[in-house]
Structures are given as C-alpha cells and as structure tokens.
C-alpha cells in the first residue's frame, strides 16, 4: 500500500519530457519532488505563473509571489507571469499537457467529485471545474477507500460533481487504473503488497482485470 509520497512518486513517472503540468493542492503538489532527472517540465500555477520553482529560502519569501495554494514560491529561468484570464485561457485551449488533482470520488464513466460535501461548509471549486472540463490529460491522485473502508471508485458519484466524463487515469494507495472510454476502471498495476482481490473488494464501480497485473515499480 502506498503512502502519499508513494502515490506522488508513481504519478511522477507519467510525466514526459516537455510537458506543461498543472498540479493541484495536496498529493499533486508532492509530485514536483519526484520528477525524474533529465525530464524538462514547466509547472503552471493557475493564479498566473508558468515555470514555478521551489519554495524560497527562509527570509527570501516574496508576498507578491505565491502559487494557487497561496504558498510562497519562486520562479525559474524561463518563467512568465500573466493575468487570471490568460491563465485559464491557456488551460481551456489545452496548452497544458497534464493536470494532476485530487478527488473525493470518481465514477466508472470518468465523472469526478472533489469540491462539495452537502451539509458541510462549502469553500468553493476554485479552478477545479475549469481544469477538469478543459484538460486533455488528467490524472487523479486519491484514496481508493475511505477510513471506514468504503470505496471511492464508484458506479456513480454520490457527491455533487466537479466535472463529467473527464478522468482517464487514477493513482491510489492501492493501484493504477485507467477509466475506459466505454466505462469501467481498468486495473493496470497494483501497489506493493496489495492483491488483485483486495483491489476488487475495494472498488465499488465496475473493475476490469485482464491478464496478469504486475506490482508497480516506483523507485
């Protein structure tokens, strides 16, 4: 079973040389730490920055330079700043190659819910609805099962949707899965020490298992 850093490490292997990538808050942010050497990537922050760098050294924080999670950050050589309209313009126009974000639930037809829990204070969708509706390539980083052991990979989402039929790949603490165009979660890899049977038990939506499912390689 993977911890958060393990999920981030596995997702990092999906990033190709030359990709522009938008990383959501939470586990996706950790992905930046595991981008392989020799892979040139530019990170987009939807508040208006391409070429996001690491956190600043202590004492060098600039209140005018933050990411979409409101964290102080830095720029890298080649970075550019733009307004929010251009930022979401390039997202809608699919100039960003890959979006990585978290989810509360994903359905077997690729719907995603990650912004609202009825009865709880709703903070808002931020840029998530724009990202999932626009991106050509989305990877969801999420927990396969909640603390009560209930699956979050469902036949249909129970929570209010963020976007419909948009998720194509999911990485959880248990597995890597594709969402099939015709519906269903196709099991691609299992986490170290996790059995196919356990993944079957943990997936409420339709799970497609074909052939031998290898354990994922992370390091």
């Amino acid at each position, binding site marked *: 079973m993977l911890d958060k850093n393990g999920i981030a490490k596995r997702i990092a292997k999906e990033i190709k040389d030359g990709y522009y990538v938008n990383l959501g808050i939470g586990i996706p942010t950790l992905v930046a730490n595991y981008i392989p050497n020799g892979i040139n990537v530019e990170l987009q922050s939807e*508040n208006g920055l391409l070429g996001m760098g*690491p956190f600043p050294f202590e004492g060098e924080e600039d209140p*005018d330079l933050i990411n979409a999670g409101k964290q102080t950050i830095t720029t890298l050589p080649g970075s550019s700043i733009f*307004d929010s309209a251009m930022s*979401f313009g390039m997202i*809608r126009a699919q100039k960003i190659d890959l979006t990585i974000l978290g989810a509360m639930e994903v359905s077997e037809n690729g719907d995603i819910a990650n912004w609202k829990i009825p009865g709880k204070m709703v903070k808002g*969708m931020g840029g998530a609805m724009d990202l999932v509706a626009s991106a050509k390539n989305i990877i969801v980083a999420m927990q396969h099962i909640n603390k009560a052991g209930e699956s979050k990979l469902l036949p249909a989402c129970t929570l209010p949707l963020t976007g419909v039929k948009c998720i194509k790949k999911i990485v959880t603490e248990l597995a890597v899965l594709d969402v099939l165009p015709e519906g269903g979660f196709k099991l691609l890899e299992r986490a170290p020490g996790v059995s196919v049977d356990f993944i079957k038990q943990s997936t409420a939506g339709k799970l497609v298992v074909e052939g031998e499912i290898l354990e994922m390689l992370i390091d």
Partner: protein
Amino acid sequence: MINKVVSNADEAIKDIANGHTLMLGGFGLCGIPENCIAALVKKGVKDLTCISNNAGVDGFGIGLMLETRQVKKMISSYVGENAEFERQLLSGELEVELIPQGTLATRCLAAGYGIPAIFTPAGVGTEVADGKETRNFSGKDYLMEYAFDADFALVKAWKGDTAGNLIFRSTSRNFNPIMAMAGKVTIAEVEELVQAGELDPDHIHTPGVYVHRIFQGEAYEKRIEQRTVRKKD
C-alpha cells in the same frame, strides 16, 4: 495626457454607495487593494456585492468588511480560511455565489472587451450549469456565461503613472488587470505613482483608458497566507 490622480483612498471611493457592486482584485491576500478596503471600512458603506476570487481572512482583506457587516453578497471561486465568513454564511446573513475561477476571470475579460457573453466548458454537467444555456461546439458542450456588470473595480498595482497606466508585480497581477478593464469606474491604488512618461509604453499591463482614478497607497502590509520555505543546504 489625461490626468487621473486623486489624493487618497477616501477621495477615490467617495461615490461608492450602499448597494453597489464592486470588483476587488487579488488572489488570496496577494495583490489586494488594501487602502481602498480600509477606506470602505472607514466610510461604512453597506449592502455591497463583492466580486472577488476570495473573501480574505479573519482580520485582513475583505475579511475586514465582513466583520463590519458591509457585504451583502460575495461572488467568488473559493472562500475558505475565514471563520467570520462561515458564521455569516451559515446564519443566512451573507449570500454567496460560487463560480469557477476561470469563468470568474473570463467574465471580467468579457466586460472589459465589450463581449456580452462567452462560452466555457467549466461546470457542464454540474450544479453550476443549472439554469444556464448549454451549447455544443465541435462535439463538446459549453455553458454560456455573461460579462460582469460592476459599478466599481478596485485594483492594486505595483507602479502607476498620472495617466492611469498600470504595471503589476509578479503573481500579484492575477485578477487585477482584468477587473481594471471591467469596472464602470476603476480605481487603482499603486505602491509607486510616477509621472506620465516614466513607464515604458511596451511594459504597461493596463492602459490608462481603463483607469478612472489613481492614487499612491500607503503602509502596505502584504500579509502572507501560507509562508512556505526551504532550508539552505
């Protein structure tokens, strides 16, 4: 050169009245019009509708206007990090309209560019689409979204000149230039006000034609919401 300079925030906001719709630039606490917000609190104008990506935090930014019950309605994409906001929302004192961040930005752009409506895929198939026209272009569904209509836009820039031209610094740019274009009346506060001619025309982010009043702000606090750092090796 058409001079847009006013002496201070109080003068700049003097005709903002109860019930007006205001746009406020900034993302989180980054690039917010601190001086204009302070002047609005001082003036005590109320029943405001505020269009702003976020609603500040307790004790800073729009949070200050929430404490004094000046805001009737917030139109935002994300309103976390604010206990007073949550209290007013749950008690029904405050109305909130949540819209996707890109839709928020593009509705500003549309207003500034005289485009009455645009189409975006954000929110298709979700509750955001309720009551909205959906239209298919090349096999993909989009929602029709309208340009904003705001009485005033309050923005914060790094430098500005007497002709109203603005230059923003780093990611404090965010919503500021597009809101500057969108306000019926746009008020810009700047960290440094210079004479017309001192800014390079090629580097101006917001042309002065979009700015009606400009003043040099004071005592910028620029509070940091999430101070994240790394250690030197």
